[in-house]
């Protein structure tokens, strides 16, 4: 489903502080499978997730999604693809303070032109499904870590994406909440979604829901196991 060929990402290209985050990486990810990118901080996991999720463009190399080359897509098409195909769960969740949890989850869907009432209904359905319906109208700053994490997942699911990208999702959760999160991911996998998770948490990497673990170091694939 997702294919990368010779993908390279350099920051500050040509400057003294040039940094190669991803180095000539080739990779194929199957649909409806869960893949974990594992590696120490600075190994290029987040950059790789950003490249796959069309949040960043590679310096060189190409990426295909369902057979369609996406790195050359003009920004307008890329935005559309990002909105409809990928759901992101960011490491620091990136929930907006000052607005309610439900409003946070509705935000990514507004550009698609759906009516407010329909979005609200869908948002509430997802809140109910993830057991946080009572928190829908609370401001995000008043939510606990686990609740905020679920809100971030609801937001990622609002546009019904086929690929969920989660960056270090258990980084700020205790063991119990991490377990609950993996259960949610397991349900998402059962729905036929492709999951791409970056993590160095052994609990995630050893989970039964994971089909493949790819070890990344210095922007290159060091080893992988299924």
């Amino acid at each position, binding site marked *: 489903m997702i294919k990368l*060929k*010779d*993908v*390279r990402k350099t920051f500050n290209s040509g400057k003294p502080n040039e940094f190669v985050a991803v180095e000539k990486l080739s990779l194929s990810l199957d649909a409806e499978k869960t893949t974990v990118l594992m590696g120490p901080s600075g190994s290029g996991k987040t950059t790789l997730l950003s490249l796959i999720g069309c949040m960043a*463009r*590679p*310096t*060189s*190399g*190409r990426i295909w999604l369902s057979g369609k080359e996406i*790195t*050359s*897509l*003009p*920004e*307008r*098409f890329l935005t559309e693809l990002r909105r409809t195909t990928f759901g992101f769960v960011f490491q620091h969740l990136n929930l907006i303070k000052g607005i309610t949890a439900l409003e946070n989850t509705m935000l990514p869907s507004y550009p698609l032109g759906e009516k407010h009432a329909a979005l609200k209904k869908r948002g509430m359905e997802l809140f109910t499904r993830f057991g946080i319906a009572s928190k829908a109208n609370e401001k995000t700053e008043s939510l606990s870590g686990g609740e905020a994490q679920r809100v971030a997942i609801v937001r990622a699911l609002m546009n019904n994406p086929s690929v969920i990208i989660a960056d270090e999702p258990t980084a700020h959760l205790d063991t119990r909440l991490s377990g609950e999160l993996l259960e949610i991911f397991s349900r998402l996998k059962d729905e036929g979604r492709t999951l791409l998770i970056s993590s160095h948490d052994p609990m995630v990497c050893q989970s039964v829901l994971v089909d493949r673990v790819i070890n990344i170091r210095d922007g290159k694939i060091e080893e992988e196991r299924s």
Partner: protein
Amino acid sequence: MIFHPTILALFTGSIIVSFMILYSASYAVQILRKWDLKSGSELQLVLERKTYLISTLLAYAFVFQLLSFFLFIFSADQLHTFFVGAMCAAGSLYVNSYGYPTLIFKLVNFLLAGVWLIFNRVDNTGYDYPLIKKKYWFFMLLVPLILFETWLQGNYFLRLNPDIITSCCGTLFSADSNPVASELSSISSINFIMIFFYATVSLAVISGVIFFLKGKGAGFFSGVSILAFITSAVSIFSFISLYIYEMPTHHCPFCMLQQEYGYIGYPLYLTLLGGTILGTSVGILSPFKKIESLSRTLPSLLRKLALVSAGLFFAFLCIVTIRILLSNLILNG
């Protein structure tokens, strides 16, 4: 005189546009030589990103190009008070040998820049840069024309000498001044030109509407649009001007831009040029409907262009007809 606000605006604008075009041309050459969508090389990815910047820059440059045509005519018209003998832009442009060539280049570049902007718009609707090479080849054709126009315009403004006694439009566009003008302004020719004018412009309107409704006949519509433009340009000189000025001998295409005539020249030229640019674009772009990434969007865009073009030609026809009907001049008693 060079410190006249409109001259300064044109002068500065044209120099900035020329620099933008030269900057863009360097990338255009790279795109034309190195563009390969199949390659994932660093250069290719840089070019893919740069083409956004370049096409945005060019869009601004060419919009200025469109505006500068009217600003130039307006400036030339404003300047006539500085020259003995000049009554309108016709006299100001005749002050030195650069005036009329500048106007001609501005007109040609106006039409080409308009078509390029539509070309660019269509290219941007495709996900795989479907017209990129054609777009930049077209741009490269425009580069020397616009640079030459800037040079001509600079020379025209810098060589304006208020001591020169120029000719007025009455002399420049009189039937006695040259045999072609004489032929175009004879009553028998006027009758023929008027029939031909109404036939071609009406045909442009009808074929535009037919294309909008059925999506067929793009080439025919474009051809008729160009023909309508030429016929209209001749007609403005031959008989439309006479009705506007209500004088049987005054053929000036510039006086109608003055307040005295309600600035009627501006809507007249705007509708005609707009209709021509859009109409021509329909025929030029029609063959690209088969490109996969354009097959969904281009047909509907072409139909809209045809409808707007037909609307503009119709508006032009209405302005002319109303003016003729309301005029105190009766040519065919």
